[in-house]
């Protein structure tokens, strides 16, 4: 790149804006404009990332003091933990199921919100509530609704005849707890994904559908051959952002089960948090965080490969 700070190209040349007769300030180029942003990114995003990587190779005492490098010791202890394979598999299920179901349901919701009907605006507003509300608070109310004795979900399922007694400890039983955690994760992921897909739907010009109708294609046929292909970029963005968010999801699990009973509803993210702030093993926690990073990167790259992103 040989470009300088000088504006180029006729369409982008704001040269006429420069008051030429006035004395000019020394030309610092883009620094005064983007410098503060760089400072914030390097100081508060990249520094912790580097610090985390460094910590994963350090021997950190219980009180947080670094006692020198230990090579791969933290990683060895991390992978020696017999709980880890279960946590890893659960994390994989967590990401695939939550993102997959979210995308499928969002396609339907976006189509509904793109159609014209009375009260559509109110439905859109309702969809915004879980997006705007704090996830911890949403997860907490689900925990209350799923309470084994006093929860409204038990009462409803009992009234519908699905449960034989109105008492069922959904979140205390690791078998059902994880399903409910995934349900709540889907619940809070749907609004954003739906809105991204809705944005994608609204960018499709209507005359394409007109043309298709002239050719005799409508309904499911035109959805399959027009809407879905044109929705690819929006789907790609929605899926990737969703993957990163769902993988890093912490408040839902923390508020509803704290990863329990035992570590049976932990994902690698809550496991990482527990290692540092409950078990005071900062080195091993940092190693977990680095592994998480590698895994999410792998997830995204694998996904891009599967969907063949260049075609999008």
């Amino acid at each position, binding site marked *: 790149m040989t470009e300088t700070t000088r504006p180029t190209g006729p369409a982008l040349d704001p040269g006429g804006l420069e008051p030429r007769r006035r004395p000019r300030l020394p030309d610092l180029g883009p620094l005064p404009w983007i410098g503060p942003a760089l400072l914030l*990114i390097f100081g508060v995003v990249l520094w912790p990332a580097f610090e985390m990587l460094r910590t994963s190779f350090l021997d950190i005492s219980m009180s947080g003091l670094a006692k020198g490098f230990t090579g791969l010791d933290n990683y060895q202890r991390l992978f020696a933990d017999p709980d880890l394979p279960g946590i890893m598999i659960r994390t994989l299920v967590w990401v695939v199921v939550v993102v997959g179901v979210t995308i499928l349901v969002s396609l339907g919701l976006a189509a509904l919100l793109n159609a014209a009907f009375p009260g559509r605006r109110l439905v859109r507003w309702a969809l915004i509530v879980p997006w705007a*509300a704090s996830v911890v608070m949403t997860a907490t109310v689900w925990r209350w609704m799923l309470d084994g004795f006093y929860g409204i979900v038990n009462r409803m399922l009992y009234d519908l005849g699905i449960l034989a007694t109105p008492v069922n400890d959904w979140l205390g039983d690791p078998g059902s707890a994880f399903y409910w955690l995934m349900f709540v994760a889907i619940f809070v992921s749907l609004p954003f994904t739906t809105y991204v897909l809705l944005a994608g739907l609204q960018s499709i010009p209507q005359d394409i559908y007109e043309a298709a109708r002239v050719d005799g294609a409508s309904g499911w046929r035109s959805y399959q051959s027009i809407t879905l292909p044109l929705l690819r970029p929006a789907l790609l963005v929605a899926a990737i952002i969703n993957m990163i968010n769902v993988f890093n999801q912490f408040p839902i699990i923390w508020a509803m089960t704290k990863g329990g009973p035992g570590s049976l509803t932990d994902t690698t993210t809550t496991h990482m948090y527990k290692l540092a702030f409950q078990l005071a093993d900062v080195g091993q926690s940092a190693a977990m965080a680095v592994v998480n990073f590698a895994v999410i990167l792998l997830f995204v790259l694998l996904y891009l490969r599967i969907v063949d992103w260049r075609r999008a």
Partner: protein
Amino acid sequence: MRSAGAGLRAPSIRKALLTGLGALVAFFFMAPYIQMLITALTPSKELYTVPAQYLPSHLEFFNFVSVWEKAPLWGYLRSSLIISVFATLLVLLVAMPAAYYTARYRYRGRLLFLLLVLITQMFAPTALVIGIYREFVTIGDTFPPAGINTYLSLILVNAAFNLAFSTWIMVAYFSTIPVELEEAASIDGASRLGVLRRITLPLALPGIITATIFTFIAAWNEFVVALTLAQSPDIHPLTVGVTTFIGQYRVEWQYLFTSSLIAIVPVVILFIVIEKWLVGGLTAGSIK
């Protein structure tokens, strides 16, 4: 909407079906918050009944008064406001010039900067929380006002992690404003700042408002960093503060949800304000 022949009935049946479906969807997404409101208005002695009651015998509106004495709610509210307002201001102050310059000029390293912004968007604070904690412990050793357990640390983290989205969306908005408009104004004698103030900023306003509200809400709802960095209760924001109603053996659900609603209602209203720009903004911000 079929063409001729289908008559008037078909579209109206379709509309009725869609409306019914829409009502179901709206109810599904509102249900937990309706339950929140019902619980918040339930007298404390009726909370623990088996099986659960759909509605309490009477609504206890007084819960919304007594909650202020049950926990330092004013303190939580003040902390949430301080953190979110200053993080938002910092983001605007930092992102606006960067976005404007990046939208207008082809400078060396422009692509690198955009790439850096994109990468930041992939870094979630949760994934970096160990690093963030250790960084601010280190900073606090030499400069205590920005160490852990300070507002400043929380403001900086919230600003930094929301910078990417705001920059990205504002670059998109600034790019849509034709340079000719700015040139015309400056030929008419407006100063550089005058052009920015009277032409550029008003035209980019939807993008700026979207970025502002998004950052504010994200900071308002942030949980894991506050849980980790804010150790003394007097700087706890609402998200962390309301969890104090969850005791070891007993949870004061009615107060937990009155305070949750106090936290949720304002941001839902803010979000609805930007709803009409949201669809366009998301396209501009991420798809293009």
